[in-house]
Each structure stands twice: as C-alpha cells, then as structure tokens.
C-alpha cells in the first residue's frame, strides 16, 4: 500500500480515529495531571485539552472533505466520511467542555 492510498483510506475515518483517540488520552491525563498541577506550575491540562479539541476538529474536517458531501458523492465511503465528521465534532465538543473545566479548577479540589 502506498502512502497516497493509505492516506485515501484513512481520510474518511479521521474523525473517528482522532476525536475519540485524543479524548480517551485526555481522560487519563485529567486523572494524572491534577496532582502535579495542584502544586503549581504550567497548566498542561488546559493546553492538552484545547489542542486535543483542535485536532479532533481537524479529524472531523478531514472526514468531511473525504465524504465529498458538497459534491453530492454517494455510497458507503461518503456515508462513512459524513458519520465520522459528525462524530469527530461531538468529541471536539466534549473536549471543549473539559477544557472549560481546566479553566475553573486548579487540580487541588477534592
């Protein structure tokens, strides 16, 4: 499989790979980073969460592009692209909500 064909296969599912993948990692970071962030220093959780939201949106956009939605392309690959675009957007929304939490909590609250 060439790089171009791999890219062509991955594009429609970028939304379901990037959004949930980053969200899952960020869930774990939320458990781990509370302890170091409580003792002060850089708020890595805020950066990670908003960066993750941006990447999830990028994944959703790539899926949207691959779906050929504007060109009226049909069939299973367009369907998969459209589903993944919507799905990636919701995971971006979940990450943005988590980002909001990092702005109001310090990590010290129990």
């Amino acid at each position, binding site marked *: 499989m060439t790089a171009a064909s791999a890219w062509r296969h991955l594009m429609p599912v970028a939304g379901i790979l990037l959004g949930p993948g980053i969200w899952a990692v960020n869930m774990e970071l*939320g458990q781990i980073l*509370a302890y170091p962030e409580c003792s002060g220093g850089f708020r890595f959780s805020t950066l990670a969460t908003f960066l993750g939201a941006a990447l999830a949106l990028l994944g959703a956009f790539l899926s949207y592009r691959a779906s050929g939605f504007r060109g009226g392309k049909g069939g*299973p690959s367009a*369907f998969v692209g459209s589903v993944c675009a*919507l799905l990636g957007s*919701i995971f971006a929304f979940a990450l943005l*909500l*988590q980002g*909001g*939490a990092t702005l109001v909590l310090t990590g010290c609250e129990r």
Partner: protein
Amino acid sequence: MTRPPEDRDLRDTALDTGQEPDALERRLARIWRTPPGLVNALSTVDHKIIGRRYIVTAFVFLALGGVLAMLMRLQLAQPESRFLSPDLYNQVFTIHGANMMFLFAVPVMEAMAIYFVPLLVGTRNIAFPRLGAFSYWVYLFGGSMLWIAFILQMGPDVGWFAYVPLAGPQYSSGKRADIWAQMITFTEISALAVAIEIVVTVLKQRAPGMSLDRIPLVVWAWLVMAFMIIMAMPAVVTASSMLILDRLVGTHFFNPAEGGDVLLWQHLFWFFGHPEVYIIFLPAVGMISTMLPAFVRRPIFGYLPLVMALLTMGLLSFGLWVHHMFTTGLPRLGESFFTASSMAIAVPAGVQIFCWLATIWLGRPAFRVPFLFILAFFFTFVLGGMTGVMVASVPLDTQVHDTYFVVAHFHYVLVGGAVFPLLGAIYYWFPKITGRMMSERIGRWVAGLLFLGFNFTFFPMHILGLQGMTRRIYAYPAEMGWGGMNLFVSLCSVAMAAGFLLFFIDIFRSARHGEPAGDNPWEASTLEWATSSPPPPYNFVRIPVVTSASPLWDEKGSLPVVSGLAVNRRELLITGMGNATPEVRETSPQNSIWPFFAAIATSVMLVASIFTPWAVVWGAIPLTITLIGWFWPRGTPEDDS
C-alpha cells in the same frame, strides 16, 4: 464412499427445472432443519431456536427478578417492617439487581440479536452457530447457579456491584460473594461469544447490496453493542477473577494493608458497568428506529445522524465510569472531565429524539401497541435522561449519592429506555417468531398499566431520595416520615406487576390462539418480513439482493435474489464489509452435541473453582476433550468443502 460430482456441488439452479415447484424448499429444509428428539434439540445450531430459548429464558429471569422487587416493596410498604429479615433482604436486593442486569437485560438484547440479525441482514444462519449454542447453555447454567444458591440460602448479599472490601475475604465469609463473582464469569463468557457472532454476521454475511448506508438501524445498534461487549466485559471478568483470587488463593489485589487498592475494584467494575447501561440501551433505541417507520408509513428521518448517534454514544460511554465514583475522593479536576463527557453524551441522545420526532411529524402515525410503547419510551426516557444530567454534576451527585433518587433515575433509564422499547419489539416481532399476532386489546392494557404503574412507582422515589431515604435500606423508623409515600409506591408497583402478568398471559394465549399473522402484518420495509412467519429453517429460499435502505417498500414486486448457492450442504454467502459485494460461498456448521458438553464441562469447572483453585487445572481436561470433539472433522459435506 465417493459421492457423484453432481451431488458434491448441487446448486439451487439445478432444481429450477419447473417439474417440482417446491423441490428447492424441500431440499433446503432437509439440509437446514433440526430433526425431532431430545439429542437433536440439545444439538441444534439454528439461530432461531437458540434465540427463542434465549428470549424465553431471559423473560423467565425477568419474572423471577420482578417477584423479588415485589418482595422488597412489601417490606418497605410500612415503617419498621419485619416481613423480610435483614439478611434475606440483602440477598433479595443483590439478586434482584444482578439478575436484572446480568441475566435479563444484557442477555435479552443479545437474544433478540441472535434471532433477528441473520433475518435482518438476509443470511441463512448466524456466524459460528455452535458458539451460539455453547453460549446459551453457559448462560442457562450460570443463571441457574445463582438462583439455586439463593434457594439454598447462599445467595450473594453484597449488592449487584459487590464493592470491596465488603465483598472481600475480610467482611464476607462463606461462598456468597464467590457465587456472585462466578455468575459474572458465566454471563460474560456467554455474552462475549454472542458478541463475536454478531460482529462477524453483520460485517461479513450481509445480503449483497446491503452496503453500510443500507443496514437496518437496529442492526447498527447490535453491531455497536457487540463491540462494546468485547471492549467492556473483559474489565469485569478481570475484576471478578481478582476477587475470587483474593478470596480463594489469598492474593491481595483489593487489600490496602498489603499494597492492594479498593478503588481499583470500582474502576474496573464501572469501566464495564457504565458501558453496560448503553449495551442495554443502544439495541433498544435501534429497535425504536426500526419499528417507527412501520407505524408512521415513511422512512426514518435522519438515518445518517442516527448511525452517528449510536457510534458516538457507544464510544463516549467508555468515558463516563467515574461519575459513579464522585464521592470517593478523587481530584475534582479529573471528575470534571467525566462530568463533561456525561453532558456531551446528551447531544447524540438528543439528536436521536429529534430524528424520531421528525419522523413522526412527517408521517401518518398508527397508534398500534408497539407505537404506544415507543411513546411511553419517549416520555420516560427523557425524564430519566434529565435526571442523568443532574447526577452527572458533582455537587448534586454528592447530595443524592446512594439515595432513592439514584434508584429512581436508573429505573427510568433502564425500564423507560430499554424495557418499554423491548416490550414494543416483542409485540412487533412476535408475529414473525410465532406466525401469530398478539392481542391489540390486551396490549393496550399492558402498555397503559406499565406506563402508569411505572411512573407512579418510580417518580415518588425521586422525592424520597431528596428526603434522604438511602438505597438498600431494609427498614426505616416511622419518625422519618417516609411511610406514606412508600406505601403509595408499593401500591402502584402492584399495577406494574399486573401489567407484566397480563403481558405474559397475552404471550401464552397468542402463541396458541392468536390471529394468523401472514408474512408481513405491519407492512414493514426490512428483510425479515420478506420470508414466511415463522421463518423456515433456512430463512430465505434464495438470498435477497438489497437495492435500498427500505427494500420491501422500494422493490414493489418481488426482491431480486442470488442464485447458485449449493443445496447439498449448509452454505451461505460471504460479502464485503463496505459495499456487501459477494466474495465467497462458505459453509455453515451442522448441528452438534459438543457445544452442550463443552458448556457442561465449563460450568462444572467454574462452579468447582468456587471451592478449590485446583478445579481450574483438573477441569481443563474434560473441557479440552469436549473442544476436541467439537472441532473434530466428521467428513460431512460442510467439512469436505
């Protein structure tokens, strides 16, 4: 003896001579049928027979769990009641919860999948059908073990989630907690087996032309459910195995004094436990999406967002588990991430609701019994969803944690979100299973009694919870002021019980004396209605070819079909995952008694390992023998091909 070449590869086209009009049907029936007799009944791998047994068994467990619920309501009907002893009450609420979650809710959703997935995707049997037979027997033996233990006064008494250290060796002597843990192993083995069957059937055995955007929504829901089972169940199997090791071998996974961690139990349990809610809920919403078009006479509105909602909820459900642990002292920052995910899951859930409302708005609703259950679902589930958003919030959850508010919330979600759609689905698909209609008149009484009985039973529990009535409480003093409302709840639960009783009466009556249904009594659009009611052992005389998402509506005449499949052996068609283009003809296994023997060997090993760890070692020998028998080639046409 060598068979002649024409008999080695006899195709359906060879029987199209026109001399005997039903030659193909007779030939297929001979190949696919389950002959009469006890051994054949134990050996069958017909997904419809196994699915039917699964559904009946699950409803028996529902009825038994319901009896326990009524016992609890009798106990709580008045203050200071001594109807049940504290010990018995502990067993009753534990077995009620464990039974309803592990022996009814998850298995019944899988059971419906076993019966209907092959029919809905247009194939002749489920993938790995012997695994399905094995799964059913393991489920039956595991469920029986729990109830026999209860009858012998050895029933688990540690709650349906068996928190340590209460369930650990320090605080639970005897074998009660071990029986809970091993019941988990039984049900998880059977659930995983069915999940694998569903995944392979949906991805590789769809009728030609049933591309990803034409799969019935309930099949999408079962596919997501199956993947969720595969990802979630290992966590609880690991946890229950670790608990048994702590109790039997003396390990210290959950013993903080020796470096263990009690919170590890909660993490492992709820990593499974929260997705389990969606494992139950998603098939139910899939059923709604598939039934609704038949009653509003138009295709579903928003097929694409509905598929997106199923996938999104399936994935997001794996990031909610800590909202069951908000009072355990974890950092608030971490908890807030789970709050965020719990709020976010309301988006796909809301998308579904709006798609269904749009479908009804644009259609011409016919208020038949399944549709009444759909309406009951809307009202009840939306209420349960709203209290779900409330308890996903840390401050509110901290106040109502372990109170009757939570009891009310999860019954609204599970009964409203899953049981109402399931009952609607039974009324909808009963004609396909039995060839007879259920009673419309009795069905309306059932829907009315259950809807009113349920809401009057469980809504007041929100208020009792806010007044401070805790979960699992076996008696309360009169001074608390909860007596009046508890009496009201208990009286209303009788209406709910009457609804279920009437439902079971209708099932028995209709199975014998119901109106003949015909092939497609609801004039629905999906493939299961393209075959006779009940379906023949081979499901379809010829595998249909699908040209749209509503094949029976869009193909006005008869469906286009595939020809050329072998009829001298059990054969089905394997198709591609995306477009469902035909790839290869594949055989399907014949009936076999070995899955039954393997299930017996597995059950003996699991029950014995409650008492000695050596049972795993010695139990592996008969289990291996049964597996060798299972896979041993027998020179059948299926093996030869």
